[in-house]
Protein backbone atom coordinates (compact mmCIF):
# COMPACT_ATOMS: atom_id res chain seq x y z
CA UNK A 1 0.00 0.00 0.00
CA UNK A 2 2.76 2.42 0.92
CA UNK A 3 4.31 1.99 -2.50
CA UNK A 4 1.27 3.44 -4.24
CA UNK A 5 1.44 7.09 -5.32
CA UNK A 6 -0.61 9.58 -3.31
CA UNK A 7 -3.27 10.45 -5.94
CA UNK A 8 -4.14 6.79 -6.26
CA UNK A 9 -4.35 6.41 -2.50
CA UNK A 10 -6.77 9.33 -2.36
CA UNK A 11 -8.80 7.77 -5.10
CA UNK A 12 -8.92 4.57 -3.10
CA UNK A 13 -10.02 6.47 -0.04
CA UNK A 14 -12.76 8.20 -1.98
CA UNK A 15 -14.01 4.85 -3.22
CA UNK A 16 -13.93 3.42 0.31
CA UNK A 17 -15.93 6.38 1.58
CA UNK A 18 -18.55 5.97 -1.10
CA UNK A 19 -18.81 2.25 -0.33
CA UNK A 20 -19.11 2.56 3.44
CA UNK A 21 -21.11 5.77 3.34
CA UNK A 22 -18.58 7.89 5.23
CA UNK A 23 -17.49 11.46 4.58
CA UNK A 24 -14.60 11.91 2.16
CA UNK A 25 -12.46 14.67 3.61
CA UNK A 26 -8.87 14.45 2.32
CA UNK A 27 -7.81 17.91 3.59
CA UNK A 28 -9.19 17.20 7.09
CA UNK A 29 -11.23 20.39 6.99
CA UNK A 30 -13.31 21.05 10.10
CA UNK A 31 -16.87 20.42 9.01
CA UNK A 32 -18.54 20.34 12.41
CA UNK A 33 -19.83 16.85 11.81
CA UNK A 34 -18.97 15.84 15.34
CA UNK A 35 -21.68 18.15 16.60
CA UNK A 36 -24.25 16.50 14.38
CA UNK A 37 -23.16 13.14 15.77
CA UNK A 38 -23.73 14.21 19.37
CA UNK A 39 -26.65 12.71 21.21
CA UNK A 40 -29.43 15.10 22.23
CA UNK A 41 -29.39 15.30 26.02
CA UNK A 42 -32.73 17.05 26.45
CA UNK A 43 -35.00 14.01 26.98
CA UNK A 44 -32.72 12.49 29.61
CA UNK A 45 -32.10 15.79 31.41
CA UNK A 46 -35.72 16.76 31.94
CA UNK A 47 -36.58 13.71 34.04
CA UNK A 48 -33.92 14.13 36.73
CA UNK A 49 -36.39 14.96 39.48
CA UNK A 50 -39.38 12.72 40.17
CA UNK A 51 -42.70 14.08 38.95
CA UNK A 52 -44.71 16.28 41.26
CA UNK A 53 -47.51 14.45 43.01
CA UNK A 54 -50.90 15.37 41.57
CA UNK A 55 -53.50 16.32 44.15
CA UNK A 56 -57.10 15.16 43.95
CA UNK A 57 -58.17 18.78 43.86
CA UNK A 58 -56.28 19.35 40.61
CA UNK A 59 -57.96 16.31 39.04
CA UNK A 60 -61.41 17.43 40.10
CA UNK A 61 -60.65 20.90 38.74
CA UNK A 62 -59.69 19.34 35.43
CA UNK A 63 -62.88 17.26 35.24
CA UNK A 64 -65.67 19.27 36.87
CA UNK A 65 -68.32 16.84 35.55
CA UNK A 66 -67.11 13.99 37.74
CA UNK A 67 -68.18 14.12 41.35
CA UNK A 68 -64.93 13.14 43.07
CA UNK A 69 -64.88 13.07 46.87
CA UNK A 70 -61.73 14.14 48.67
CA UNK A 71 -62.03 12.21 51.92
CA UNK A 72 -59.51 14.30 53.84
CA UNK A 73 -61.13 17.55 52.78
CA UNK A 74 -64.59 16.17 53.58
CA UNK A 75 -63.40 15.17 57.05
CA UNK A 76 -62.04 18.65 57.65
CA UNK A 77 -65.28 20.32 56.58
CA UNK A 78 -67.34 17.93 58.75
CA UNK A 79 -65.11 18.70 61.69
CA UNK A 80 -65.57 22.45 61.24
CA UNK A 81 -69.35 22.04 60.97
CA UNK A 82 -69.44 19.92 64.13
CA UNK A 83 -67.45 22.49 66.09
CA UNK A 84 -69.62 25.31 64.83
CA UNK A 85 -72.70 23.48 66.08
CA UNK A 86 -71.13 23.33 69.54
CA UNK A 87 -70.31 27.04 69.37
CA UNK A 88 -66.57 26.40 69.06
CA UNK A 89 -66.08 27.67 65.53
CA UNK A 90 -63.72 30.40 64.43
CA UNK A 91 -64.90 33.89 65.43
CA UNK A 92 -66.05 36.38 62.85
CA UNK A 93 -63.82 39.23 61.74
CA UNK A 94 -63.46 41.77 64.56
CA UNK A 95 -64.91 39.49 67.24
CA UNK A 96 -61.78 37.58 68.24
CA UNK A 97 -59.94 37.94 71.53
CA UNK A 98 -57.38 40.39 70.25
CA UNK A 99 -59.90 42.58 68.46
CA UNK A 100 -61.98 42.87 71.66
CA UNK A 101 -58.90 43.78 73.72
CA UNK A 102 -57.88 46.39 71.13
CA UNK A 103 -61.41 47.87 71.10
CA UNK A 104 -61.50 48.13 74.94
CA UNK A 105 -58.11 49.90 74.94
CA UNK A 106 -59.36 52.51 72.47
CA UNK A 107 -62.13 53.48 74.88
Amino acid at each position, binding site marked *: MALLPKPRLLKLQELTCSLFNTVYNPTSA*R*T*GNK*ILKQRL*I*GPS*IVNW*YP*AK*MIKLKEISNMFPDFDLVDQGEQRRLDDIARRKRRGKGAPKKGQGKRAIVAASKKK
Partner: protein
Amino acid sequence: MSLKPHFGVLRKAAVRRDIKIREKVAESELVRQAYRYIIRNETLSPRLRRQAQLNLNSFDIHSRPTSIRNRCSETGRARGVFREHRLCRFQFRLKALSGLLPGVKKAVW
Protein backbone atom coordinates in the same frame (compact mmCIF):
# COMPACT_ATOMS: atom_id res chain seq x y z
CA MET B 1 -35.82 12.45 56.91
CA SER B 2 -38.13 10.77 54.44
CA LEU B 3 -37.68 7.06 54.14
CA LYS B 4 -41.21 6.35 53.00
CA PRO B 5 -41.57 5.93 49.24
CA HIS B 6 -43.23 9.02 47.83
CA PHE B 7 -43.74 10.60 44.44
CA GLY B 8 -43.22 14.25 45.22
CA VAL B 9 -40.13 16.29 45.82
CA LEU B 10 -39.50 18.86 48.46
CA ARG B 11 -39.69 21.71 45.98
CA LYS B 12 -37.03 24.10 47.14
CA ALA B 13 -36.58 27.26 45.15
CA ALA B 14 -33.24 26.01 43.82
CA VAL B 15 -34.84 22.76 42.65
CA ARG B 16 -37.64 24.63 40.97
CA ARG B 17 -35.11 26.87 39.24
CA ASP B 18 -33.15 23.85 38.10
CA ILE B 19 -36.27 22.20 36.70
CA LYS B 20 -37.00 25.37 34.75
CA ILE B 21 -33.45 25.47 33.39
CA ARG B 22 -33.69 21.84 32.33
CA GLU B 23 -36.90 22.50 30.45
CA LYS B 24 -35.36 25.49 28.70
CA VAL B 25 -32.25 23.52 27.73
CA ALA B 26 -34.33 20.68 26.33
CA GLU B 27 -36.49 23.11 24.42
CA SER B 28 -33.69 25.07 22.76
CA GLU B 29 -31.21 22.24 22.35
CA LEU B 30 -31.93 21.38 18.72
CA VAL B 31 -31.59 24.95 17.45
CA ARG B 32 -28.50 25.53 19.57
CA GLN B 33 -26.84 22.45 18.10
CA ALA B 34 -27.67 23.65 14.59
CA TYR B 35 -25.98 26.99 15.29
CA ARG B 36 -23.04 25.21 16.84
CA TYR B 37 -22.69 23.11 13.71
CA ILE B 38 -22.62 26.20 11.52
CA ILE B 39 -20.01 27.83 13.75
CA ARG B 40 -17.71 24.83 13.72
CA ASN B 41 -18.07 24.22 9.99
CA GLU B 42 -15.09 25.91 8.39
CA THR B 43 -16.32 25.27 4.86
CA LEU B 44 -19.12 27.80 5.31
CA SER B 45 -18.66 31.52 4.80
CA PRO B 46 -17.16 33.54 7.71
CA ARG B 47 -20.08 35.94 7.57
CA LEU B 48 -22.61 33.16 8.10
CA ARG B 49 -20.59 31.66 10.92
CA ARG B 50 -20.29 35.03 12.64
CA GLN B 51 -24.04 35.48 12.38
CA ALA B 52 -24.55 32.04 13.90
CA GLN B 53 -22.25 33.01 16.79
CA LEU B 54 -24.29 36.12 17.46
CA ASN B 55 -27.52 34.16 17.32
CA LEU B 56 -26.18 31.55 19.70
CA ASN B 57 -25.21 34.28 22.16
CA SER B 58 -28.66 35.82 21.99
CA PHE B 59 -30.25 32.78 23.67
CA ASP B 60 -31.42 32.96 27.25
CA ILE B 61 -28.50 32.46 29.62
CA HIS B 62 -30.36 29.62 31.35
CA SER B 63 -30.79 27.64 28.15
CA ARG B 64 -27.11 26.67 28.33
CA PRO B 65 -26.54 23.06 29.27
CA THR B 66 -23.73 24.08 31.63
CA SER B 67 -26.16 25.94 33.89
CA ILE B 68 -27.77 22.65 34.88
CA ARG B 69 -26.88 21.41 38.34
CA ASN B 70 -27.51 17.83 39.35
CA ARG B 71 -29.25 18.17 42.69
CA CYS B 72 -30.41 15.57 45.17
CA SER B 73 -33.88 14.46 44.13
CA GLU B 74 -34.84 14.01 47.78
CA THR B 75 -33.46 17.09 49.52
CA GLY B 76 -32.27 19.39 46.74
CA ARG B 77 -28.69 19.39 48.01
CA ALA B 78 -26.26 20.48 45.29
CA ARG B 79 -23.05 18.89 46.53
CA GLY B 80 -22.11 15.30 47.09
CA VAL B 81 -24.81 13.91 44.81
CA PHE B 82 -24.42 10.43 43.35
CA ARG B 83 -25.44 10.56 39.74
CA GLU B 84 -26.51 6.93 39.62
CA HIS B 85 -29.09 7.26 42.39
CA ARG B 86 -29.69 11.02 42.12
CA LEU B 87 -29.29 11.27 45.86
CA CYS B 88 -26.92 13.18 48.08
CA ARG B 89 -24.53 11.13 50.15
CA PHE B 90 -26.60 11.20 53.36
CA GLN B 91 -29.91 10.33 51.68
CA PHE B 92 -28.06 7.60 49.82
CA ARG B 93 -26.82 6.19 53.13
CA LEU B 94 -30.24 6.34 54.74
CA LYS B 95 -31.95 4.66 51.83
CA ALA B 96 -29.24 2.09 51.35
CA LEU B 97 -29.27 1.09 55.01
CA SER B 98 -33.05 0.73 54.97
CA GLY B 99 -32.82 -1.44 51.85
CA LEU B 100 -34.61 0.87 49.42
CA LEU B 101 -31.83 0.83 46.83
CA PRO B 102 -31.71 -2.49 45.00
CA GLY B 103 -28.24 -3.95 44.69
CA VAL B 104 -26.67 -1.66 47.27
CA LYS B 105 -25.18 -3.42 50.26
CA LYS B 106 -23.03 -2.30 53.15
CA ALA B 107 -19.50 -3.60 52.82
CA VAL B 108 -18.35 -5.85 55.63
CA TRP B 109 -14.92 -7.45 55.86
